[in-house]
């Protein structure tokens, strides 16, 4: 069991080191996420008060769209030069590989979320009323998205059509996360009178199920 976590840590560290070198998240994905916020601003043509009401939902849509990019990047790291074969040959348990890659995606999503919160504070005039709820629900939602995304990234890999297939596979499954995270943020940002902590429970359950399921299924998916 310790070996599983040690290997996962190795993989996560590798992915994050690659990100540190290539700066794909920083240079491409994060600007894209901010761009989505800006596009909403243009499209909705509303005043700040209205945008503030919608801010949580818009933020989480931006996170979901950006997560598609983050997951694609995570998966393509392995398939670009055939490193995924090396991972299969290494003898590491597939669940370790899953946990490591999901952890790396989670870290990147967490960074994105922070950035987007700053974004909606600046662009939509949101105010943070309950920072603890914000952080905890952000983490729970982040785990949910990262785990589910990594699972589906592996599922859609090795097919020529991964880029177009992943969204239609991943996004419907994340519907509960979108609803739950938005409601939790509604409460944390004072945008609506909702009990955000109740929604946190849903997010935590989703995150746990997604992580366990992903770890179990990953082996079957990359196997021959």
């Amino acid at each position, binding site marked *: 069991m310790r070996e599983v976590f040690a*290997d996962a840590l*190795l993989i996560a560290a*590798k992915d994050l*080191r*690659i990100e540190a*070198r*290539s700066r794909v998240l920083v240079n491409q994905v994060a600007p894209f996420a901010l761009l989505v916020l800006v596009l909403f601003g243009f499209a909705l043509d509303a005043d700040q008060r209205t945008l503030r009401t919608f801010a949580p939902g818009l933020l989480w849509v931006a996170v979901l769209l950006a997560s598609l990019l983050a997951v694609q990047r995570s998966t393509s*790291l392995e398939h*670009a*030069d*055939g*490193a995924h*074969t*090396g*991972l*299969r*040959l*290494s*003898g*590491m348990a597939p669940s370790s590989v899953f946990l490591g890659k999901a952890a790396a995606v989670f870290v990147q999503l967490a960074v994105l979320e922070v950035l987007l919160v700053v974004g909606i504070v600046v662009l939509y005039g949101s105010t943070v009323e309950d920072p603890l709820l914000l952080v905890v629900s952000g983490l729970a939602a982040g785990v949910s998205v990262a785990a589910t995304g990594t699972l589906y990234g592996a599922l859609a890999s090795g097919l020529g059509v991964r880029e177009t297939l992943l969204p239609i596979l991943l996004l419907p499954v994340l519907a509960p996360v979108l609803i739950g995270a938005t409601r939790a943020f509604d409460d944390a940002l004072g945008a609506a009178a909702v009990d955000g902590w109740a929604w946190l429970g849903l997010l935590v359950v989703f995150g746990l199920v997604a992580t366990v399921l992903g770890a179990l299924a990953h082996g079957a998916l990359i196997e*021959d």
Partner: protein
Amino acid sequence: MPGGDGPRGSVGDAVPRRQGRGEVSVHRYRDGVSVVELRGAVVLLGRFPALAGLDLSVDVGETVLLQGPNGAGKTTLLMLCAGLVRPADGEVRVLGHDLTVERREVRRRVALLRHGTGLYEDLTAAENIRFWARAAGLGESEATSRAASAVGLLGLDDRLLGRPVHALSAGQRRRTSLASLAVRRPDLWLLDEPHAGLDQVGRDAVDSLIRDAVSAGATVLVASHELERVRSLSPRVVTVAAGVVVRDSGRGGGTTRPACTPEAATGEAADA
């Protein structure tokens, strides 16, 4: 044609050994033990039979050159021996394991060089080698020392090691891939066109790796179009076409056997 000559045990008959990741196991073999034993192997890629009933038998310490036209199935054969594809039919044993059920155990003990580099472009050569050493289950110090010897073997100096892989030439990348494989100290080397696209330095490095592997007692299967080059290692030549073996020069083509016979490290007498 490969045939049995005399009683031959299979590796599986040897002492039950707990093969942890990263442990050296080559010297626990007995002489004349078959590393690869394929009879009527069929491998389907989708619906296409890449291997259509292939027979091959390879002993410990042999060097085998796989030749044949493109599309013959050489790459698939190497993938099969690596435990990466499932045989659809036939008797398939590699390193004593039945590949219809035990592919995972085989993978740790082989090293497969394929057309892609198998490296992470954005990391340096040194980081790649280190990652793959750790991934194979080696501890910190073991990984460091093996990495050092692999790097020396393949002539990668510090200047190259500190460069990200995308900034290396094809030959340098190939050598880095080989180094990251060499740290595994595999029992079976599977090389798919290792010389392709390399300059002189690179080719020499590949050759010295093969020689080093052979003298360490490993078994080497090389698929290559570079006949002259590989012939200097005096291998057995197996010609593959249309998913089967069509010609085999047979054993005993002057392969160097390890000077020390695989010893019974824990006391099992070799009774080949």
